[in-house]
């Protein structure tokens, strides 16, 4: 038996093309290996934002998880975080519930009891449902409407249907639709824009706030910066939505239909020239002119400082981080570093990066965290100096690691600047500890 993990080089993969991605890199063709590197895939809520945390993005909301006990198990840890204290509740299903659907009749009463037990009425009750109700075909909209009559506040469904994760509307897409669905049409304000896509805000020094300001968009709403429900409701006054994560596209479409708010999409990138292009195209589309050179220069300076200090840095890049592993790898290669490994499941959309990676570094190996033979990945061998991403750090525990997976989101030039500042700090720490 060959005890080697499956990998393919970027050169080989690019040559095969996006129509012939090997089955080892396609998750639905094999069992999914479960290692700490795959935790974010199997259980998004275990690290960062899964459906449960995301569903509580609306200020003042609480969540009732209606599910078998197993689905709420990891919430023990979340409920200990101060911001989620008194916000998670559970209605546990048993086998009789599955057969008779009687749990649905209990939901209105449970919602009422929860609201009565809280010192302050919540702004909204999110009813989180899991695979069981997906299979039962529960009409949760109806159940929520019934619950609403008991408490006189909004009650919303929130679908944690893991079975649909590779479908058209995976759970993280659905939850983004849910959290903006309470907005009601209101008068538009020309200077207001919403940033959609993340459950935590962008880094405070992100240039996007200033650039939007230069375009006359002086008020920016992000759901996580809304201090209360009233402020959240003001998001309906936006002139347009800026979608920063493709998983928010459906939410933006909903807002277009219901609130008449159009949207524009920007991609998170780590290649400075591409970031600049994107901003300028965006500004041009709005008929505006922006001055972003100083931000570009600051980010470039951070790259240069790191490159001057560690010109020969070799990277291993994972997918469990605030980046597209392939785009980030390409950026690192274009800045002159080596990338020896990428952990990720390439999709057709990634081929735009994979082809360029192959041109610069055809020997870069691509692994899928999920493939069964990853059991044999030798974690004692350090192929790189630095890992980026939680998953990459699992494979190389002795390397310098930057998890790059904070809740607060890096974006644009500020994201590049912060990345290289943190890489520099991580390398310096390692040197000092020697």
């Amino acid at each position, binding site marked *: 038996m060959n005890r080697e993990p499956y990998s393919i080089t970027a050169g080989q993969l690019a040559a095969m093309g996006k129509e012939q991605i090997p089955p080892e890199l396609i998750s639905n063709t094999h069992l999914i290996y479960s290692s700490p590197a795959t935790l974010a895939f199997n259980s998004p809520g275990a690290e960062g934002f899964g459906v449960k945390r995301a569903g509580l993005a609306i200020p003042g909301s609480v969540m009732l998880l209606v599910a078998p006990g197993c689905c709420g*198990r990891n919430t023990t840890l979340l409920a200990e975080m101060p911001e989620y204290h008194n916000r998670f509740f559970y209605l546990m299903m048993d086998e009789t519930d599955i057969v008779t659907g009687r749990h649905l009749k209990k939901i209105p009463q*449970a919602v009422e009891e929860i609201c009565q037990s809280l010192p302050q009425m919540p702004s909204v009750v999110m009813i989180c449902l899991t695979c069981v109700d997906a299979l039962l075909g529960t009409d949760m909209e109806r159940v929520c409407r019934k619950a609403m009559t008991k408490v006189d506040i909004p009650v919303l469904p929130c679908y944690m249907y893991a079975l649909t994760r590779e479908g058209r509307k995976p759970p993280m897409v659905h939850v983004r639709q849910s959290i903006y669905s309470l907005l009601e049409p209101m008068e538009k304000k020309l200077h207001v824009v919403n940033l959609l896509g993340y459950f935590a805000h962008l880094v405070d020094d992100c240039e996007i706030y200033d650039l939007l300001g230069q375009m006359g968009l002086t008020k920016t709403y992000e759901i996580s910066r809304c201090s209360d429900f009233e402020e959240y409701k003001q998001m309906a006054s936006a002139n347009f939505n800026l979608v920063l994560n493709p998983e928010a596209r459906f939410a933006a479409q909903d807002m277009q239909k219901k609130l008449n708010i159009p949207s524009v999409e920007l991609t998170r990138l780590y290649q400075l020239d591409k970031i600049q292009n994107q901003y300028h195209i965006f500004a041009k589309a709005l008929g505006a002119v922006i001055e972003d050179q100083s931000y570009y220069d600051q980010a470039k300076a951070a790259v240069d400082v790191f490159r001057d200090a560690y010109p020969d840095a070799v990277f291993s890049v994972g997918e469990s981080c605030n980046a597209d592993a392939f785009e980030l790898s390409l950026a690192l290669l274009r800045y002159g570093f080596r990338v020896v490994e990428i952990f990720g499941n390439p999709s057709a959309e990634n081929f735009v990066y994979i082809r360029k990676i192959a041109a610069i570094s055809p020997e870069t190996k691509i692994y899928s965290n999920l493939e069964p033979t990853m059991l044999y990945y030798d974690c004692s061998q350090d192929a790189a100096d630095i890992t980026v991403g939680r998953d990459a750090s699992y494979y190389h525990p002795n390397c310098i690691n930057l998890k790059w997976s904070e809740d607060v989101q890096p974006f644009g030039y500020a994201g590049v600047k912060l990345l290289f500042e943190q890489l520099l700090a991580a390398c310096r720490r390692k040197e000092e500890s020697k």
Partner: protein
Amino acid sequence: MKGLRKYLAPFAPDQSGASAVLSDLGGMIVICDAGGCAGNICGFDEPRWFLKKSAIFSAGLRDMDAILGRDDRLVEKLADAVKKIDVDFAAIIGTPVPAVIGTDYQALKRMAQKKVDLPILTVEATGMEIYDVGEETTWLELFKVFAREALPVEPGSVGIIGATPLEIHSMDAPGQLKEKLQEQGASNVYCYGMEAGIDRVKAAASVEKNLVIAPSGVKAARYLEEKFGTPFEICYPLAGEILTERLEEAELTLEDLAGKKILILHQQVLANSIRQAIRTQPDTDCTVASWFMLKKDFKESHDIHLTEEDQFIEYIQKEQFDIIIGDEILRNAVSDYTGVYMNLPHFAVSGKV
């Protein structure tokens, strides 16, 4: 209201119990789920998973697999993985998805056996039961599948059944148990599922006696008694040490327990053994309460099985215990309790030891 939890998150489910029994035995474990259950089992209920590699997989079920009942696809994936991974057996553990679609585990087992040249175990977990139900089924299935041969008895040897991270008081418990039993005269001690591997499970008939340290192990011990005549004893031999440690933490002495009304919340065998240690003091009124299995044979008449959060809260308010010994997280439900609360971690409750 029945089923509603306002203060306590759900405890470890049956699928976690099944996985806990098997995960250290060198087999391939396939969680028959869409991914979230495998994530919860590994990332929350299996502390060993972070420390060493284990062949745990998610079946990666998708909606059409469930709707169309595509068990053949699962078996194909399993057969493909077995070609690439060196394992001693394969186990398929159920979750709510197969429970809802009514998966026939016997048929699944037969299909897998035709494609894979390895022993196959299936555990019909549903995600709706508590961890010890899954453990009980799995311990029994494990010994039925692997301990088939009667062997000469190794004098002085002891097999420990029931040890999983979800049942024991500390991850050091297997070593401590071994030491304790050896002090008491045992020659070799085999802690199934935590230190002793699948070969020792196969040789289960050779031990002189079994020690059951959790109620989930009782059925398997009875099976081994019937099949090989191996006697068994039920107790948690470290209870005295655990009690001393907890008392020190609470700045109390064993003598302080005299005349006190005490509640112990844990798995039944550990709780019973602690009660026995407490009863060395005069006039103690000691009750065991458990959210988990409470076997009739080892239960005292006033012991109580807990199923609902409201029931727990009312019980604590009514009984006015002087001392409660239980996992700290349970205190969230009885925050107005004013007596002494001694923390006795239970991984299946709080995910902490």
